[in-house]
């Protein structure tokens, strides 16, 4: 019967792999999905940073320390720089990943640029806090006891900024480096 004969031909059919084009398009989808989840992660990170900043400012204002206003402004600066970094990352991802035709090249560009940004991320909170502390000391000519308050404030601000920046850095690194290694594996598997 025809069905039995077809079954014999069907099971004897030689294995079929993936062409480079097929793997490229699967990789493209994978990259777009990874970038979407990366954007979601970054949005949550931004939300967390803004929330921490608002709570921090509120607590400072309620406790009404002598340096409360200064540190509230510092926290507002941290929150603003986080919004700017977030916008920059989203801009990079959009520019190099979605609108570019060359997926491989776009990925390399994104990884390269975000790697630089990650270093900046790690160093920036400490530099900014030290800078603001110095400004505070020069402007208000602070006396000895206020130094303790300044130190605690600096440490808290650095802690909050580093926590938030590390979340962001880990998210970016994890997604993009995973995609980079995956691309070489896709190339290896292509049958043509």
């Amino acid at each position, binding site marked *: *019967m*025809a*069905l039995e*004969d*077809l*079954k014999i*031909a*069907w*099971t004897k*059919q030689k*294995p*079929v*792999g*993936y062409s480079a084009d*097929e793997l490229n*398009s*699967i990789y493209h*989808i*994978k990259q777009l*999905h990874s970038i979407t989840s990366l954007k979601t992660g970054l949005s949550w990170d931004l939300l967390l940073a803004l929330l921490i900043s608002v709570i921090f400012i509120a607590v400072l204002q309620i406790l009404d320390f002598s340096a409360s206003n200064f540190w509230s402004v510092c926290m507002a600066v941290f929150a603003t720089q986080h919004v700017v970094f977030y916008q920059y990352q989203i801009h990079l991802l959009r520019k190099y990943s979605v609108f570019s035709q060359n997926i491989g090249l776009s990925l390399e560009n994104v990884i390269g640029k975000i790697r630089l940004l990650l270093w900046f991320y790690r160093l920036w909170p400490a530099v900014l806090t030290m800078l603001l502390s110095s400004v505070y000391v020069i402007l208000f000519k602070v006396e000895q006891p206020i130094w303790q308050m300044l130190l605690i404030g600096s440490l808290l601000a650095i802690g909050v900024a580093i926590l938030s920046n590390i979340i962001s850095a880990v998210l970016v690194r994890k997604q993009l480096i*995973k995609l980079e*290694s*995956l691309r070489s*594996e*896709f190339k290896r*598997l292509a049958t043509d």
Partner: protein
Amino acid sequence: MINTDKEALKLLADHAGIIHKLSFMYTNNNEEYKDLKQEISYQLIKSFGQYRAESKLSTWVYKVSLFTALSFIKRKPGSHQSLAEVANYAIIENEFSEWNNVLQQIKRLPEMDKTLIFLYLEDKQYREIAEIMGISETNVGVKLNRIKQKLKEYFKE
């Protein structure tokens, strides 16, 4: 458990034959074939991490692939009717060209029946077909005999 994308890709390559034949069975032209193959492949890469070794890996691959194929057909019901395009199936028309009539008839079957015949052609045991489709072994036997009978009558005509 499959933990990395690299492992998932290797497994995808190992099961490329299943994905190829299933995509062929559920589509009617080259474009649809490519789309479905791409979609199944992506779903498998994404889902390999959820495989818990409760069933054979190939059984699990069939389940995920069939589920994806059925969702794909639901989303594209219009194009699924274009059986005339089977003859222009550039990628694989040579593989099964002499079986074109039989395959056209199988492709006209309702989805459930087509899935049963596909798994029968894949030489799966009733027990595995039952596990993949979530029905009883007896049901598999009864349904398969009925479909075979239906096809036999068609080929007699």
